[in-house]
């Protein structure tokens, strides 16, 4: 064995870099307590520390870092929604992904390969025209394409000409892409830690001390924390956590199921989804085909997978790409999605002065990880909700100003 190698291996000074420190002891108070150590919470922590100079921040995570919906989503990044408010917000989210690896000095493997959504009916095509026009108006790359263009984009697609599910056209979104979900969370966690943010894993919030209109302290299984500001960003647990503070969110929880196949050689260059089949596919950089996304048709807090949903997703996938019929499944999983009545998130103020919401992310949260964190950090630092977030206020359900994105979400509802 070369001596130099042995020297490094046995040296106490061997340069090991620690991106994310082990959970420290809890301090009695922090300026900002972020509940939820997923992508959104960590992104907010990073933006607070880097752009607003707020480093007395504790991120509380019940389980392990980014082990909830950050680990369970299917990594779609896009801005082809239908409301102008939604498109403007998600467009900023896509733009932040384009430079995220540089921002974090961490390769998040962003791959802007475009998303193709298929129409099997005239009605779907009409809705695509509305989305494309709204998208173009707001400066995103979204257009309706015909059968020929669909075939050129994805030559392996079964067009089913003359069949019951003939592909009539598609919505081509050149801005769409994917990134490595874990890397996004780890990158934010490493950057935030470097600037003094504390990440407390296995730290579960059990209640709040509230006096008047303010949260005085957060009670956890590791002790009480006095807090200046509090953010709730707990994905599937948002309803539960907000309820502890006496805030009843308009949220119903459903499991969303997905699965991946064994690795195949690269053949699928874009993201492909079908509105009628309630199925979408993307090939990961490892070659696995990620197939989503079936929402269970009734409320539930269980992350079990069901054979019914596997059959449904496999049927859709094999219809679009018949040669997948012999491919084996490697993994299946589910995440708890916090669905809002209008399929748009709830961001901004709560009925309590210093409790902020980054909730209602349902089946569409991953793509907003950078922008939600950036804008919520701005909100918490200034105490004012920026214009881009105002349409997503909780009050919209009292004033009946809903942002209906029902038709523009990818999963089945």
């Amino acid at each position, binding site marked *: 064995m070369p001596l130099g190698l042995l020297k490094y291996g046995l040296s106490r000074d061997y340069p090991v870099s620690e991106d994310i420190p082990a959970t420290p002891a809890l301090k009695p108070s922090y300026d900002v307590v972020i509940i939820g150590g997923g992508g959104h919470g960590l992104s907010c922590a990073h933006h607070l520390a880097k752009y607003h100079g707020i480093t007395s921040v504790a991120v509380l995570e019940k389980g392990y870092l980014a082990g909830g919906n950050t680990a369970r989503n299917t990594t779609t990044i896009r801005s082809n929604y239908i409301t102008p408010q939604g498109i403007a917000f998600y467009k900023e989210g896509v733009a932040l992904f384009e430079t995220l690896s540089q921002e974090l000095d961490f390769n998040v493997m962003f791959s802007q390969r475009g998303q193709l959504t298929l129409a099997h009916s005239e009605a779907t095509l009409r809705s695509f025209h509305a989305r494309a026009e709204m998208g173009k108006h707001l400066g995103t790359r979204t257009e309706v394409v015909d059968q020929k263009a669909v075939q050129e984009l994805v030559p392996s697609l079964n067009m089913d000409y003359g069949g019951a599910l003939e592909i009539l056209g598609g919505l081509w979104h050149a801005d769409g892409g994917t990134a490595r979900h874990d890397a996004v969370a780890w990158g934010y966690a490493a950057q935030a830690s470097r600037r003094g943010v504390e990440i407390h894993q296995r730290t579960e919030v059990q209640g709040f001390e509230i006096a008047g209109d303010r949260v005085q302290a957060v009670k956890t299984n590791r002790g009480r924390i006095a807090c200046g500001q509090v953010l709730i960003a707990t994905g599937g647990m948002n309803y539960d956590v907000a309820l502890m503070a006496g805030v*009843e969110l308009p*949220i*119903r929880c459903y499991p969303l199921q997905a699965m991946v196949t064994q690795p195949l050689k690269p053949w699928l260059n874009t993201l492909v989804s079908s509105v009628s089949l309630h199925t979408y596919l993307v090939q990961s950089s490892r070659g696995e085909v990620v197939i989503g996304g079936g929402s269970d048709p*009734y*409320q539930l807090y269980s992350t079990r997978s069901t*054979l019914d949903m596997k059959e449904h997703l496999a049927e859709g996938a094999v219809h679009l790409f018949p040669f997948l019929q012999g491919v084996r499944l490697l993994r299946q999983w589910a995440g708890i999605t916090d669905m809002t009545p209008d399929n748009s998130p709830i961001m901004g103020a709560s009925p309590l002065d210093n409790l902020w919401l980054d909730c209602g992310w349902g089946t569409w949260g991953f793509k907003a990880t950078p922008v939600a964190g950036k804008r919520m950090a701005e909100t918490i630092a200034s105490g004012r909700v920026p214009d881009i977030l105002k349409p997503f206020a909780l009050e919209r*359900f*009292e004033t009946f100003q809903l942002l209906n994105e029902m038709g523009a979400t990818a999963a089945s509802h």
Partner: protein
Amino acid sequence: MKIMTCPMNGPRNIDEFQSFGPVRDELDPEQTADADWSRHLFRAENRKGVVVEWWRHVPSNYFFLAERDLVSNEIIRTFDASQRSGQS
């Protein structure tokens, strides 16, 4: 496949049924303030625990009630809406 027992048709596969969500009390349109309407429309029971829900057996278009645990997914009982008393 998960089995649900329909009060009219007996045990059937769950995919023959459609969930209509937790039972909500009817409001009197003459007496209800906007805030209460909004709550009625958009807030549904979502606590971790047992809920009473409307379900429909789709082939027979029969609506009934079910008590179900939102964490374990156990269907505790199903019963005809006429037997609803003291539930909310």
